[in-house]
């Protein structure tokens, strides 16, 4: 049974992530007055990449993106099977670190700068992610998602500030403008394709699939704020995820990329104000 669930998560997560990305591209295109690609375009892209010749700048650097994928999958399995949210976040961080190291390992100017920026982004959003876990633990005395989503009341009631903070930093996680410093989905960034500049073919496909997992992982964090013991709430939770995703698309299309200083400042200040105040109030009432 566990094996089946795991298998289902491993297979369905990227499908859902890919579909969302396809939807994203259509919505983005409509916002820009274009028709946009078909819904399944991300899958076509990945299949095409798989069949392309993979070139590499050295024999080492692709190892890191595969490792990043492995730990993204691992995270998804922990999260979606109701496991420990903190452990999942740690596994995800490990995956991100591998991804960053991949950029360094290619030793190319563009990807190294991309790696530095990616690291900065991780540093910017990490406190808020940890505080999200802390807040969820505060409301349920458990880090386990299966406990959190079967509590009497949804976590959002206790943690509105933490939730807004989380949505803010999800912009980093989803690689959306204004916080897509390390690599943009569009190849016209000042650092070419940033951290992924030196990847091609299968390796690039792997990066894309990893991103699909990450989209779902990010939205799973939103999900746990709304789901609780009432069965219908899971529907609301899915809707909340879609709304948040739609909101991120709007932000993506309406904001220009910021400098790293603004990215770091804003993320840490939002975390410091919303997350901290929310938690302090909560601890006061406990």
């Amino acid at each position, binding site marked *: 049974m566990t094996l089946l669930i795991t298998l289902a998560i491993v297979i369905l997560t990227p499908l859902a992530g890919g579909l969302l990305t396809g939807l994203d591209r259509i919505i983005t295109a409509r916002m820009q007055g274009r028709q946009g690609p078909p819904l399944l375009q991300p899958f076509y892209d990945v299949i095409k990449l798989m069949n392309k010749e*993979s*070139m*590499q*700048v*050295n*024999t*080492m650097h692709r*190892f*890191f993106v*595969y*490792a990043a994928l*492995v*730990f993204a999958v*691992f995270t998804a399995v*922990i999260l979606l099977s109701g*496991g*420990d949210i*903190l*452990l999942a976040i*740690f*596994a995800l*961080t*490990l995956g991100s*670190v591998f991804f*960053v*190291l991949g*950029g*360094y*390992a*290619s*030793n*190319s*100017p563009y990807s*190294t700068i991309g*790696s*530095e920026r990616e*690291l*900065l982004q*991780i*540093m*910017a959003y*990490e*406190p808020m992610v*940890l*505080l999200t876990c*802390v807040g969820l*633990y505060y409301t349920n005395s458990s*880090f*386990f998602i299966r406990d959190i989503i079967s509590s009497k009341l949804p976590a959002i009631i206790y943690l509105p500030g933490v939730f807004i903070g989380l949505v803010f930093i999800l912009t980093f996680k989803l690689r959306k403008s204004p916080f897509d410093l390390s690599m943009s989905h569009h190849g016209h960034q000042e650092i*070419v394709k940033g951290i992924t*500049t*030196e990847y091609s073919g299968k390796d690039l496909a792997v990066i894309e699939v990893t991103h699909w997992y990450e989209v779902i992982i990010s939205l799973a964090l939103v999900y746990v704020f709304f789901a609780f013991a009432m069965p219908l709430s899971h529907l609301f939770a899915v809707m909340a995820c879609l709304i948040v995703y739609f909101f991120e698309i709007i932000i993506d299309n309406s904001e220009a990329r910021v400098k790293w200083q603004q990215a*770091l400042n804003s993320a*840490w200040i939002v*975390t410091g104000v919303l*997350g*901290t105040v929310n*938690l302090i109030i909560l*601890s006061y009432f*406990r």
Partner: protein
Amino acid sequence: MNAISLLILFPFVAALIIFITKNDNVRNVMVRLSAVITAILTLAVVFLYFNDGITYTYSHETAIDACIMVIEILVAAYIISAGIKNKKYLVSIFSFMQTTLILWFEFTQKNGIEVGTGIVFDKLSAIMVLVVGIVGSLICLYAVGYMKWYHIHHSNYKDRKSFFFAILFLFLSAMFGLVLSNNLTWLYFCWELTTLCSFLLIGYTQTKEANNNAFRALVINLGGGIAFAAAIVFIGMKYDTLELSAFIAMKPGAIVMIPVFLLALAALTKSAQLPFSSWLLGAMVAPTPTSALLHSATMVKAGVYLIIRLAPLLGDSSVGRIVTLVGGVTFLACSLMAISQSDAKKILAYSTIANLGLIVICASVGTQESLWAAILLIIFHAVSKSLLFISVGSAEHQIGSRDVENMDVLLGVSKKLAFFMLIGIAGMFLAPFGMLISKWVAMKAFIDSDNIVTVIILAYGSAATLFYWTKWMGKLVSKANAKDQTKHKFHLDEELPIIILAILVVVSCFGFPLVSKYALIPYLTAVFGKDAIYPINAGDVKLMLYMLSMLIILPIGFIPIHRWDKRRIAPIYMAGENTGDNESFHGAIGTTRKVELRNWYMESYFGIKRLSFWSDIIAVAILVVGVILLIGGLT
């Protein structure tokens, strides 16, 4: 004479013999031999007494006391004269003050105070003995190879190797005494000995800078020593006891808090917490084995060890809160400051101080969970940090620099060394390695005890930690300028300890459930008188071990693939200006320019000047508030 006395005395005797041996080769053999014997003795002691523990006292206690007193007077005389000779009068004054205080107490007040148990060996001592004995002797072993090269590379320094090795062993002896003594005067004596040893080691090169830094270490630690001496006098006069265990068993109250505060102050200086941290940063000038020893197995661990012992008294008290806050400020400020550093040893130093801050927080929060985390942090930190220090030392020999910016060639120079360094760094902050496990439990413990401010500090500090370690790892994997590097060979004396420590880093991660089950849970249950619970869910531990296994298997699974994989190797993209060797590009007007990639240091955010100024002020303010609360508590 039992095994414990042998364990304490052996390194001392070894130190004496090594000191008088002048022939290099003979001495090297003896250092190696002594290191191995120390390690074996450590294991033997732990093996013999681990299960039941042992408490006893020596029949000729007065003779030991007399010996100690004579040595104390000699040491004081040496320090006072050194202080006068070098015009560091504060050192002389501090030393004079504490020695007179202790002597006055010994001669006039101590009559009638019986010490029932001079030596206590429990589960905590066992862990400390293991850390000191194993990591310490590995560092001694490493020092043999290191010092040989050190004097070849630095021919301008006077060769005082016999002195250096002797002090290393003396240090180990003092540390064994420190973690095993239950008699506060003995504990204090060992405490002062470690101060003296670190002074002598830091000043090894006898340059002006080394001298100054050595005296700075001395003055700060002597200041802490005064607090310790005052605490002893207070405890002895007020409660008629000199036993640590008896003191800890007391009920927390306004009066008891005074010696607790004094002892905590001594511990904070020894563990280099803000505002007392400058001595540990200055200690870098010494040869690398010194730093490795100070940062991992000895010295700084003595401070946190004392705080862990005091934890039952600290807990919810105002002193406990003050110590927690000092640890918190230290953890956050030093994690941030480490970002702006490029000197590998400095990064390690800031990271040590930050991690000690974390241990101080855990210990002073004083719940079973947080102490669990604190003790595990000591183990994991000792192993990873010593590995990092000695591999940085070796890297310095091989690439001629210890600047992280220059380590991008290390993968080309010595694959092995780069790999071991990566393991050490991973051990410091990544899941599923040790430090992270402890951090995780620490976080849980802070929430459970409603220390929300520390949780937030931990969140920000961890993010900064991730940044500076990963960018270092990035340099290690980048393999730049591979062309003009010659491969170096490892010296066996250097390689062996590095390999063993790297294995220990990994093994300790697999083994922590065992440590928890057989040492931590029984110890915490005994201290608190209620059953300690294993703080990590069993399923999570399994997942962590999966992760660890994956990390081990992943690279192995990858090696064969690119043997028969016919992928084309393309030049790096440099906007079409790559000259073809991946190391230079066509610049303007036909010049060829070398590619230089630098890490981010963000001086304007995390620069030391501003941050350390403010964090020192905050730490001082917290301590002042502590004093005020203490006095307020009395009235």
